[in-house]
């Protein structure tokens, strides 16, 4: 009898100890998770604060309207880089957005469930992970070498090709959200298939498709590596698409690794401008998608 009672006591303390350990572990895990979150959020906040602090002090009207001054001189801006980026992005969008949307239309409307569509989708996802510098040297080999010079055109092509997989996948996802009843209604009216896809299905999904394009746009807007060997950069304004052209991220890179303080200042300012534009784009995308992409289509 005494032994039993002793046994009981031992079990009870064992239970209590184990329960305490489990509770401690639970608390430790929670603590670690919170710590991780803080450690992740901290660099972001740090980067933003530092960017604003360093960049804002260098911003001026000159920054937005003037090209860089020669080395050693104070002043000048990155207007040529901003305009250059805009041109490169325009060329890139002209290539990437239509082809990407068309690819997405194929995946959602014509190829649904087929092996070809699965292969395309998989390849697009894998392509999204290819380093952008590889893209750059491939386009260098394809366009710059035969042409014999760097150009805005080759830079635009590089950016455009990078946009295609992203736009294709987001377009597909948005089109899949259009209810089938809408497609049936159009077909039953005797609307030709191509017209139904474009004027009804794509139009219904267009808010989402547009946000997908903006996402791809924001992503390539910050790319530097593919431009190093295609657009190459320019200290002055470019006249034609066949010339090397400045781009904002490329210029930031060149200035950042240079030994001149004045150029460092400009790099910070440029970085601030770039990050503000990208954050605006991403926030807009978030806002539109969270409000519900398809109003009334249920």
């Amino acid at each position, binding site marked *: 009898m005494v032994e039993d009672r002793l046994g009981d006591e031992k079990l009870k303390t064992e239970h209590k100890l184990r329960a305490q350990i489990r509770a401690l572990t639970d608390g430790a895990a929670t603590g670690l998770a919170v710590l991780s979150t803080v450690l992740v959020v901290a660099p972001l906040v740090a980067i933003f604060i530092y960017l604003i602090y360093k960049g804002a002090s260098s911003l001026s009207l000159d920054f937005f309207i003037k090209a860089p001054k020669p080395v050693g001189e104070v002043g000048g801006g990155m207007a040529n880089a901003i305009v250059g980026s805009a041109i490169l992005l325009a060329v890139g969008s002209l290539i990437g957005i239509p082809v990407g949307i068309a690819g997405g239309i194929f995946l959602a409307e014509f190829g649904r469930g087929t092996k070809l569509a699965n292969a395309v989708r998989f390849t697009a996802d894998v392509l999204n992970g290819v380093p952008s510098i590889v893209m750059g040297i491939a386009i260098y080999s394809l366009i710059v070498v035969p042409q014999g010079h760097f150009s805005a055109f080759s830079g635009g092509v590089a950016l455009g090709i990078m946009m295609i997989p992203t736009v294709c996948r987001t377009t597909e996802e948005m089109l899949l959200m259009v*209810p089938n009843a809408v497609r049936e209604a159009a*077909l039953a*009216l*005797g*609307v030709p298939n191509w017209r139904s896809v474009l004027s009804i299905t794509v139009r219904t999904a267009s808010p989402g498709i547009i946000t997908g394009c903006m996402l791809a746009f924001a992503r390539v807007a910050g790319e530097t590596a593919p431009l190093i060997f295609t657009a190459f950069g320019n200290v002055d304004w470019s006249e034609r698409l066949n010339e090397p052209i400045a781009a904002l991220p490329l210029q930031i890179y060149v200035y950042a690794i240079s030994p001149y303080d004045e150029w460092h200042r400009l790099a910070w300012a440029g970085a601030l401008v770039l990050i503000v534009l990208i954050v605006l784009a991403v926030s807009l995308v978030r806002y539109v998608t969270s409000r519900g992409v398809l*109003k*009334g*289509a249920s």
Partner: protein
Amino acid sequence: MGVGIEVSNLNAWYGTNHTLQDINLNIPANHATALIGPSGCGKSTFVRCINRMHETNPIARVTGTVRIGDLDIYEDCKPVEIRRRVGMVFQRPNPFPTMSIYDNVAAGLKLNGYSNRHVLDEIVEKSLKNSALWDEVKDDLKKKSGASLSGGQQQRLCIARALAVDPEVLLMDEPASALDPVSTSKIEDLIFQLKSQYTIVIVTHNMQQAARVAEKTGFFLNGRMVEFDSTHKIFTNPSDKRTEDYITGRFG
């Protein structure tokens, strides 16, 4: 004016599923014909064979003949062409969500290339009046979207959209099953008035509805058409025992 529909030896499959077996019937012009039967008996498939919507499913197959007027719809023309002559109203209202009421009604014409503004205005007004929706929406034609209406209004909008292309046949697949009783009775009134101008085929679960609006009724069971006769006869003195069992509620 509507036209008659002649169906001979119609068989339909979804993959290996033999959904319709040896359907033969003549649907009279300018009348309303109801198709009744338990769930899954093939009535919807049958109706979708008449405007060749059945074949939009990649695993669907059809054999047999369907003649609308004097046109063999499987041999003599392409699906797009037949769908412009046969209108369809679906079980759940499906107005185009991004388009206004006006654009919804005019869609069948605009998307086929018609652009004369005056005529389109006329047609939209006529169609909406024919579907008893005009008075409720005439002030908001271009301001409100098709999806912002109530369920019953949306269905009437879909009817107007189907009528706007001036079809010869109107197919209605359980048009009132998703609606409240008031909207249902409005739609039944509509069918009653429209049938003198179009050939209407209406699939319905509701036998009272069939009795109210249709002159002829067909009873479908397990993919076959069991009996096709005047509505009065089907509901008072059916020839086939299976019809009688269904009517009296022994199954289905």
